[in-house]
């Protein structure tokens, strides 16, 4: 009886996330594949032939790869010295610099694009470079965004690297450079590889930044899917490109998972001792590189964004922020096209907040259920195998681009059996799909760190499965739940890829409104876009800042 009831409970806990993922991830992705590969129910690679026959496709794939390779290489080259200075050296203000470095990564992609544009357009501090809409500008923005990934991943490993191996090499006659190359660098390689594969993934799937910064001549697979769908209405081409993107993402995810496993193995042999030491003269090159990156690459665009938002036609002021209550500037030249926004920016911000609450709720329910399930240890070998598959399945959406999710929703959830086209839940669900893997990544290591025997101890003392969860898992999870909520909320606030496909014209989110403003003529509209970006940046930074307070460092549960 009891055994039976328990099985039903476990099955229900599994069905909710599986159903969610099936309907809102597997089905849309399958539909994309079907649209690209099938014609009237039969396999037809004609679409592929057609798409790959076009020069435009190859240019776009070339640009995507070029921007990813360049972005990744630069981020690693600049990030490794940064990791050294910020994690291996000790100096006053280190905590502040570490926090500053993290800010760009949590900024919404649209904001990053707008910030760089404000630097490069006429009137910007770097207008003389004439780099607006160029490849260099996009790569710079990608490095801006991903620098923190390299610094934090490599730095975390470097901080725990036993310095005695390098000291031994020095004692054996190796110069500092030689000791670094032959001892330290090989030890860091797993972390560097892990960071690089993640950065490559982010660069290849970058959407908002590229859409805002790239000129008409510039496009990547991601932006092309969007353009083909929304402007040329060519769903087949979009589907083919999505398939290509799926392949790229699966490949980089595999590399990333492989290198993460290597890194985790390597981390086990680390010492916990504090290894940071004060700066020395020999550290000067690394310090200079890091200072240059932090000031010129990270701070300049943010400063430019802030300055631009405060600039008015007649000096400085809050004019742009005051305009956020309006629907934007109407174009007098083209009265038909140039109507203002459907809603005010504040209204859009309110939409964003409401949607983020719903998306976070969905992502947390699904994410927590998945984590709890994959950390159970069933006795039956079959059930154990099923769980490991389950575990892998839920990591998939992590890499799948938000654009693919948005496009997939657009072509599947627009007719019976599930017509959510005009439903208010569509956008929150899409954002939840994007946020769930992040929630899982935050909570799973914490749950995994719990010794199974602790749960057994509770069970033997009379706690049923539900009581075991509330008595053992929940208190340990505690603060990490706060962290996961913060992450999910911030992701949802800044989400642009999927939302740009799905947001109804009369219910846009803040990133969508910023993108619309940037595409409209008029100084007031640009000023409003800058002001709105400042507001959005402040919202996400605040949320992440609050969430970071929940980060747990004790109990062996490093997130």
């Amino acid at each position, binding site marked *: 009886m009891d055994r039976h009831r*328990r099985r039903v409970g476990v099955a229900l806990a599994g069905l909710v996330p599986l159903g969610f993922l099936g309907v809102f991830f597997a089905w849309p992705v399958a539909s994309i594949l079907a649209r690209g590969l099938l014609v009237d129910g039969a396999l037809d690679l004609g679409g592929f032939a057609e798409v790959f026959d076009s020069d435009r496709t190859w240019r776009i794939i070339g640009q995507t790869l070029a921007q990813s390779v360049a972005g990744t290489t630069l981020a690693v080259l600049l990030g490794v010295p940064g990791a050294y200075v910020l994690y291996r050296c000790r100096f006053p203000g280190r905590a502040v610099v570490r926090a500053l470095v993290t800010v760009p990564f949590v900024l919404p992609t649209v904001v990053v694009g707008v910030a760089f544009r404000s630097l490069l357009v006429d009137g910007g501090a770097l207008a003389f470079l004439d780099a607006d809409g160029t490849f260099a500008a996009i790569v710079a923005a990608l490095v801006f965004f991903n620098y923190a990934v390299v610094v934090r991943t490599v730095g975390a490993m470097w901080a725990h690297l036993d310095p005695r191996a390098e000291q031994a090499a020095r004692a054996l006659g190796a110069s500092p450079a030689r000791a670094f190359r032959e001892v330290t660098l090989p030890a860091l390689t797993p972390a560097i590889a892990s960071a690089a594969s993640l950065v490559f993934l982010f660069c290849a799937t970058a959407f908002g930044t590229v859409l805002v910064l790239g000129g008409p001549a510039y496009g990547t697979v991601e932006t092309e899917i969007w353009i083909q769908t929304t402007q040329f209405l060519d769903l087949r081409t979009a589907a083919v490109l999505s398939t290509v993107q799926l392949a790229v993402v699966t490949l980089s995810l595999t590399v990333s998972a492989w290198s993460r496993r290597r890194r985790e193995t390597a981390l086990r042999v680390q010492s916990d001792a504090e290894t940071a030491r004060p700066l020395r003269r020999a550290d000067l090159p690394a310090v200079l590189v890091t200072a240059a990156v932090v000031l010129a690459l990270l701070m300049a665009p943010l400063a430019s964004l802030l300055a631009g938002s405060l600039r008015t036609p007649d000096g400085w002021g809050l004019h742009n922020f005051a305009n956020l209550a309006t629907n934007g500037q109407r174009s007098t030249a083209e009265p038909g096209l140039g109507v203002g926004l459907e809603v005010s920016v504040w209204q859009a911000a309110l939409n964003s907040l409401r949607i983020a609450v719903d998306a976070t709720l969905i992502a947390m329910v699904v994410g927590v259920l998945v984590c709890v399930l994959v950390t159970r240890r069933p006795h039956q070998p079959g059930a154990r195998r099923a769980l490991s598959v389950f575990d892998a399945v839920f990591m998939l959406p992590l890499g799948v681009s938000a654009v693919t999710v948005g496009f997939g929703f657009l072509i599947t959830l627009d007719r019976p059996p599930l017509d959510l086209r005009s439903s208010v839940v569509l956008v929150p669900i899409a954002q939840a799909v994007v946020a769930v893997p992040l929630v899982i990544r935050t909570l799973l290591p914490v749950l995994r760190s719990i010794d199974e025997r602790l749960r*057994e101890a*509770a*069970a033997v003392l*009379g706690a049923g499965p539900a009581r075991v969860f509330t*008595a053992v898992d929940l208190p340990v999870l505690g603060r990490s739940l706060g962290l996961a909520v913060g992450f999910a909320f911030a992701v949802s606030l800044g989400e642009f890829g999927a939302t740009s496909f799905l947001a109804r014209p009369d219910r846009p989110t803040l990133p969508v409104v910023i993108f619309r403003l940037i595409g409209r003529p008029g100084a007031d509209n640009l000023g409003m876009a800058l002001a709105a970006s400042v507001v959005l940046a402040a919202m996400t930074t605040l949320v992440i800042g609050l969430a970071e307070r929940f980060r747990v460092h004790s*109990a062996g549960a490093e997130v």
Partner: protein
Amino acid sequence: MTGHDGATGSGLELREVAVTFGATTAVDDVSLCIEPAEVVALLGPSGCGKSTLLRAVAGLEPTDRGTVRWAGADLRDVPVHRRGFGLLFQDGQLFPHRDVAGNVEFGLRMAGVNRAGRQARVGELLELVGLSGRGGRRVASLSGGEQQRVALARSLAPRPRLLLLDEPLSALDRGLRERLATDLREILRRTSTTALYVTHDHDEAFTIADRVGVMDHGRLLQIAPAELLWRRPADEQVAQFLGYDWFVPASALGAARPRGAGPDDVLGLRPESLVVDADGPIIGLVVDRHRTRGGTGLLVHIDGVGTVGARAPGTAVPGPAARVRLRLEAAVTAVLPPA
């Protein structure tokens, strides 16, 4: 719960219990009974299946064959938390986010005991394990020995029908282990607790248990009262595990063989079994010698017996090739049935 199919027995009854992991058989048809208030130890090398058997009794590991009964009732469909058994792990597994009292009262809260009842019982248990007044301490601030005491108090608090102890002292250092083993025996006696105790340490098993079982490769080789097991192991495998290194036919020692050993029996010898004694009846030739704690260890050759170990008091002992007289210490010599 399940129906009682003829409450024939009392206490724990295992009948041909088997646990397999894929192709490996961890527990191989073990049958065993534990009477109420009896303490049984399972002794065996690591990997012999003793911990798996313990987990199977607790309900943490499903059995492939056989039955586990308590007071005659089959426990097959009774989940872990309804068995009313206690389990003590090697490393305590205290709940890190609860203080000492919070840990001890956990099982009482699961059982729905009210606050006053819990407080009284926690106080009683902390006194029993020698930690009176430490209820408010954080568990992380306790030493290893104190943590094990708290874990013991926690598992005893709900008055388990059966207490299962999985190498509860092996994570502690020697002195503490010996002291705690004595305390543990005293506590189990005083509370009339029925217990199954798993360990690889002979001294611990003999200190704590009424009966001791020896396990190897998933099989229960022999189970007997401690003294009997020690003196009359069932076969050479059991004797070897108990520390008997040499096996000689009793007849080889002639009149020097211990009382109770027939001429066809086999004697199991430990290094302490033969002692150098000027009046000893056995004559041996010293092959090798080495220092030991409080004396000298010898390797001697005895005609008709072979090369065996022996002990000499003090350090003034003849070197190799010298002849020595030896006597047999019957108390540390095992008598095995003919092979």
